[in-house]
């Protein structure tokens, strides 16, 4: 049984045809990235999977049950960290549990500690750096009871080094907690480094151009970024995307 099935999803806003017959699926515990040019409709697709906007046609199945138009079934991290400014970090990471289910303060405190945010649990978000906010935002997702996590370009606003650190941190958290993750980015390197599988979207109207299986062994280290196979794969994906861009 697949964890998530995206079936024949199309979406138009009036004349603007954004998504065109998108199909893919995610296995239990898999890390899948969606790679697509700016404005191709990645966030739109996320909103459909998240159930807060209805596709023109198609269906979304979570463990074989349709969740189309039903919010609350997945855990979502928006494009910006989206922490609530009036909540302390602790209350922020507990928000997902607060909305559906029971709060587990002890576990939350542990996770905050593990994320290197110990001593910040009572701080307000404005007191944190961009990378720290992203970490808090991701902890909120992991603590939420839903088993599938959607991440919408969480690292796009960070500098190169913070970004690499965050990617490694994300992988370690994922290894520990084993959720299924659907990750959106337009950074090819990031997609390859993190994922088990990369799905390439075309320009608008977006379709699935190709899927790449990434078979590098885990845990992955930074050295991988400079290995020949990695660069070869990056080239291949780049050309694939370049072709569709013309």
């Amino acid at each position, binding site marked *: 049984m697949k964890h998530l099935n995206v079936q024949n999803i199309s979406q138009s806003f009036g004349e603007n045809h954004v998504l065109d017959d998108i199909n893919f699926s995610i296995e239990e515990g898999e890390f899948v990235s969606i790679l697509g040019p700016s404005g191709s409709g990645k966030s739109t697709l996320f*909103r459909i999977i*998240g*159930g*807060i906007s209805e596709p023109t046609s198609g269906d979304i199945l979570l463990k074989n049950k349709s969740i189309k138009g039903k*919010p609350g079934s997945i855990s979502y991290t928006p494009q910006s960290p*989206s922490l609530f400014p009036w909540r302390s970090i602790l209350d922020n990471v507990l928000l997902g549990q607060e909305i*559906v289910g029971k709060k587990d303060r002890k576990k939350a405190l542990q996770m905050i500690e593990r994320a290197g945010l110990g001593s910040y649990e009572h701080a*307000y978000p404005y007191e944190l750096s961009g990378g720290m906010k992203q970490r808090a935002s991701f902890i909120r997702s992991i603590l939420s009871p839903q088993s599938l996590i959607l991440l919408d370009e969480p690292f796009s606003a960070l500098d190169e080094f913070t970004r690499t650190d965050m990617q490694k941190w994300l992988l370690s958290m994922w290894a520990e907690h084993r959720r299924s993750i659907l990750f959106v980015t337009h950074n090819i390197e990031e997609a390859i480094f993190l994922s088990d599988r990369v799905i390439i979207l075309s320009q608008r109207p977006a379709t699935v151009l190709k899927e790449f299986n990434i078979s590098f062994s885990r845990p992955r280290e930074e050295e991988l970024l400079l290995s020949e196979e990695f660069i070869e794969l990056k080239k291949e994906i780049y050309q694939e995307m370049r072709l569709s861009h013309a």
Partner: protein
Amino acid sequence: MRKLLKQGWRPILVLILLFIIWELSVIVFEIQKWLLPAPSEIFKIGVAEWPNYYGHVLATSKLIIIGFIIGSSIGIIVAVALHLVKFLRLSMYPLIILSQNIPIIILAPLLVVWFGFGMFPKILVITLVCFFPIAISLLGGFQQTDRDLMHYMKMAGANKKQIFWKLEWPSALPYLFSGLKISATYSVMGAVISEWLGASKGLGVYMTLASSSFRPDRVFVAIFIIVAISLLFFLFIMWLEKVVIRWHSSEKRDSNETS
């Protein structure tokens, strides 16, 4: 408080200068006391007369506080109702704007005719001037709710009640406070106007009496006291805002104050 002095010294300096010019002009041009008293004269009277008018100050303060609480509660209720019920928003919003074109000074005597000299018409006047800034500013605040946070709440499966209490209400609080600050000063004006219409006690009454018996010094005493009450009230709301809203970065706060 120290910060206040740091930022407030310029207006205070200008005020002191104005008073000096006023005092000197009265002396130099030998202006009659019943026309325009000097600030020093007003101050003397203010101190000497305190036992005579402090009852009025108390009465007016009470009226202001009751009126403000009722007026702002109604403002908040109106904003929340208009925000949550789309039909109300579409049908009532323009009417609420129109309501502000009714000149209160003209309306007030009518209210007395309808409702008598009791507390009710006075509270009504204050409510009318108070609720509007709060309702409009809070409603604007609700509509400014961050879209990403809203998406997050919806995707997480939050219901309408959770969205309101966990997101829309706290995010609109700064807007509520800007409304409250405006209303605080309006409510003082409203109280004085409502007392002109007829009351047994209050600064409005004191003022009317002073002016009809040609005592500009007393009128000025009343004016200064009204200004002082407004200022104190405003500062109180500002303090309350700082206590309630602690999550803003200090940079944001600074830029708010200098702008």
